[in-house]
């Protein structure tokens, strides 16, 4: 699988996206376009079935989805781990000084 930001497979087919024809199964490229709405639970039930079905059959797309979904959460966890343990105490005493004289 490519390290690029593009779709897992470069089929290049499908001039019409799945949005314009929700009854058709999705290919890899269409699937990538739908991931945003997929992780935000904003696909129609029918689109979701097609996406789920595709991912059952296509390991690269399943791996791509996992990474797409977890990358922002990994960043979040990474930054939360950088929070100093004594930040809260320092912040509270700073604010007390500044707001209560």
């Amino acid at each position, binding site marked *: 699988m490519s390290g690029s930001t593009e779709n897992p497979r470069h089929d290049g087919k499908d001039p019409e996206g799945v949005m314009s024809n929700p009854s058709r199964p999705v290919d890899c490229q269409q699937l990538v376009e739908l991931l945003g709405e997929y992780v935000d*639970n904003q696909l129609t039930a029918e689109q979701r079935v097609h996406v789920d079905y595709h991912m059952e059959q296509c390991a690269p797309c399943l791996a791509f989805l996992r990474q797409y979904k977890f990358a922002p959460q990994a960043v979040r966890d990474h930054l939360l781990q950088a929070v100093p343990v004594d930040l809260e105490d320092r912040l509270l005493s700073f604010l007390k000084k500044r707001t209560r004289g």
Partner: protein
Amino acid sequence: MLVSLPEIPAEDDEVLVARARAGDYDAFEALVRRHQRRVYAVAYGIVKNAAEAEEVAQETFLSAFEHLDGFRGEARFSTWLFRVASNHALMKLRKKKPEPWGDVTDLEPSLSRAQSRSDGTSPFDALSQWARRPDEAADANEVQEALSSALDTLSDDDRALLLLRSIAESSHEALAERFETTIPAIKSRLHRIRLQLRGQLDERLHGKPPP
């Protein structure tokens, strides 16, 4: 490495803001305690410097204290708080490379109530999930370095947008207001950012050269 945080409870915030506005300092401190980790994490992700991130957190909560009277239930407190935090953080960056920037404590009275986010919190560890891929695993330090440098490849504004979504759990609606654009434009920008982040992480964690 799981980082668990409670959901941001908007209802409780309203109660605390009302009490703080009435002069209850303990209520203000409860708001600080509840939000300080996320505020710092958003700031740190933008300024990439611990001392400056802490200054941003200080400035943000001072602004919140000074503007308590501005909250009458029109805007969700946390939406406003993280907006101020991200503005303070971006302003710090822009002071280094000077550019004009607006008033960071703009209260957004018209901001409508934010919806809560359905997929915001993960019940398991995102990093180990990544490493659990059968083809290859990366050690924890390698993952942390990859995350940090992948984040660096995003523009300042894109970093702010990503963090407001993933840490502050801002709604698409609030983000569209914040970045002065439409909800579809915000969704498509977030999609592009996620794709970029995924690609950058994959390169780093699986040793693939860029195409």
